[in-house]
């Protein structure tokens, strides 16, 4: 079976916009014979480098990758909108590209006329559009508005009409660039059904998306682009897994860098507290210490007398590895290294977990835990061990503090430590209780997807 899409060592180099023009004058441009060659400046940006892919007919290829990894460039090459700088791109069959929906709609004329013109632009004849017209309008759910000028459409209506025309072109190769978010749930389902129908009819689909679930569900193959190069290709589950791992590693590095910066500036005294008394739980109840008013003013910082110093805070996962990214339900230890140059006997170690909105998810200290301080001198380590991190997905920040029982701060680290909780379940809230669903009576569910 012939390949529907074939890229062989395809590269695309874009010119960066330089500050100066390429030509001194228009005249010199016209007089120089190498008009095209001169338009190729030195400052370039390789959007795609040596990409070799083939998609056989009837296959669905998902392209994933971070922003700026070359996904859209690849799609444009396949669509023929731009030419590769080097290499070969070959496509067999009629292409319909869902790159920008409704590109070419004229705002002043009616939806009806736009459907015709758009259809013709996408390669249909006038008669073919007429045959499909009713179907298109019905699909777009715009029966009542089809004779109104397109400028009166809402953006959703506009997109729906664009999508409807594009999928009714009946292409052999369908290129989709992140356009599924064009309507309400119902319409999204209709779009997915349409894709499924395309698949059944043996059409080739190239799907560029950030929706990894869609890739896993729909695609036969997955291509992972990173910085314009292929990082991996093959089985969707495997590639998506590898991609997710990569994202976590990247987040890990970013969080670590962010923490280091916050701690550095706190140590340098750049960020100082406006109210050193807003201490985590001295003896006052949590509600007042970390009340809402404080939350809104919450800024990272560090203060205290340093009679006891927090020298290091590490987050350690269940595997014993220090890190910043954890999964819901994982074990997590907060290791706090302390140093007291002179012995102290009045000390409380406290900790607070805050979510991105600044809501205190949990806070406690050794005093609340009814531990009575006796003596701390020299180096010591306190570990706050969480058996299961039952938080929903999100970014969280930590307060870590040592202070006297009456709240006098020795060393107070406010929101200096960041960690991320990941979860495949998209549940909402803050706290994720361990739970199961049980049913009795006449209730039945289909098997879980996947």
């Amino acid at each position, binding site marked *: 079976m012939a390949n529907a899409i074939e890229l062989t060592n395809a590269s695309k180099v874009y010119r960066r916009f330089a500050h100066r023009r390429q030509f001194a004058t228009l005249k010199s441009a016209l007089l120089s014979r190498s*008009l095209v060659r001169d338009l190729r400046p030195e400052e370039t940006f390789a959007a795609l480098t040596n990409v070799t892919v083939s998609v056989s007919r009837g296959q669905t290829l998902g392209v994933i990758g971070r922003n700026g990894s070359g996904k859209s460039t690849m799609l444009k090459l396949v669509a023929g*909108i731009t030419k590769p700088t080097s290499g070969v791109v070959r496509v067999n069959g009629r292409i319909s590209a869902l790159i920008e929906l409704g*590109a070419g709609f004229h705002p002043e004329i009616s939806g009806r006329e736009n459907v015709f013109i758009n259809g013709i632009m996408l390669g249909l004849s006038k008669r073919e559009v007429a045959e499909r017209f009713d179907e298109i309008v019905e699909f777009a759910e715009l029966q009542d508005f089809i004779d109104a000028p397109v400028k009166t459409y809402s953006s959703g209506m506009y997109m729906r009409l664009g999508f409807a025309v594009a999928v009714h072109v009946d292409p052999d190769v369908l290129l989709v660039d992140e356009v599924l978010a064009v309507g309400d749930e119902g319409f999204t389902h209709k779009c997915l059904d349409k894709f499924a129908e395309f698949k059944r009819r043996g059409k080739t689909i190239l799907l560029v998306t950030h929706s990894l679930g869609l890739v896993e569900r729909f695609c036969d193959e997955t291509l992972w682009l990173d910085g314009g190069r292929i990082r991996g290709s093959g089985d969707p589950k495997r590639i998506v897994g590898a991609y997710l791992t990569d994202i976590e590693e990247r987040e890990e590095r970013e969080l670590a860098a962010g923490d280091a910066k916050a701690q550095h500036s706190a140590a340098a005294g750049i960020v100082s507290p406006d109210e050193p008394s807003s201490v985590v739980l001295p003896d006052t109840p949590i509600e007042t210490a970390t009340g809402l008013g404080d939350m809104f003013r919450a800024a990272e910082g560090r203060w205290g007398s340093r009679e006891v110093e927090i020298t290091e805070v590490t987050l350690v996962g269940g595997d014993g590895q220090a890190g910043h990214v954890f999964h819901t339900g994982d074990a997590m230890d907060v290791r706090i290294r302390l140093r007291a140059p002179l012995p102290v006997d009045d000390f409380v170690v406290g900790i607070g977990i805050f979510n991105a909105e600044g809501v205190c998810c949990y806070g406690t200290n050794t005093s609340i835990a009814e531990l009575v301080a006796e003596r701390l001198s020299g180096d010591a380590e306190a570990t706050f061990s969480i058996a299961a991190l039952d938080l929903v997905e999100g970014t969280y920040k930590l307060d870590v503090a040592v202070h006297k029982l009456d709240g006098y701060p020795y060393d107070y680290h406010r929101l200096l430590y960041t960690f991320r909780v990941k979860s495949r379940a998209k549940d909402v809230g803050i706290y994720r209780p361990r739970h199961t669903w049980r049913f009795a009576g006449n209730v039945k569910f289909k098997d879980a997807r996947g």
Partner: protein
Amino acid sequence: MLHNLAQLPRYRGLIQSLVARELKARYRGSVLGFLWSFVNPLLLLLVYSIVFAYIMPARFTGGDEPKPFADAYPYSVFLFCGLLPWTWFAASLNECAGVLISGGNLIKKVLFPAEVLPIVTVLANMVHFFFGLPILVIFLVYYGAPITFGELLWFPVIVLVQLILTLGLGLLVAALTVHFRDIRDILANVLQLWFFATPIIYPWQHAPDLGKWFLNLNPFTHLAISYQEVLFFRGPIGHWRWLLALGVVSIAFFLFAYFVFDRLRDTFAEEV
């Protein structure tokens, strides 16, 4: 290039519907709607007539007119003969300068033959020109202009030559403006100068000898004279040799312009 040129007829349907859209969209929402196609040239004519007949009366009484001139026919009819095609020409080029940039969405997001855009612009303006013709005809008939059937046969030829010339210039202007946005601003002024360097508001015979030599270099001179000879002046068209020569030059120029356009085609999607 020739391959792409041969593809052009395939876009017939697309060009047709885009021209229709252009015409429909232009007057959508205005009270007079399509009537503007007639009223616009009429108003333009009125302005020029007032200026050159009353404010700054033109002296068309030179003794060397080859044919009976203007005594019986008002100056405005003469003016109209050149002004109407000029409007087509100038508006086309002005719009072509921006057409690839404003149509950037199509070029960047849809697989779309870029040359269709300037072609549609020129054709849409040609249709406007045709809409203006009935007004001209009314004037000519009213004043009993000496038009003969034989002369009228030349009219489509003149239109065709102008079409080819305008298409060539339009393609060139459109392609170059993508890279040199300055052209848009320069062009408006160039066209202004070009207008006065063309025998539209004055007859060719009134130019000084050196001026005549220069005027002959201006392609639109020959179009304007041809229009005037066919529609306005008595007697057989005396300018047909020039016209046919211009036709040949226009075809060559069109091919050259298409060549340049084709060479620059791949850069459009990145530049607009």
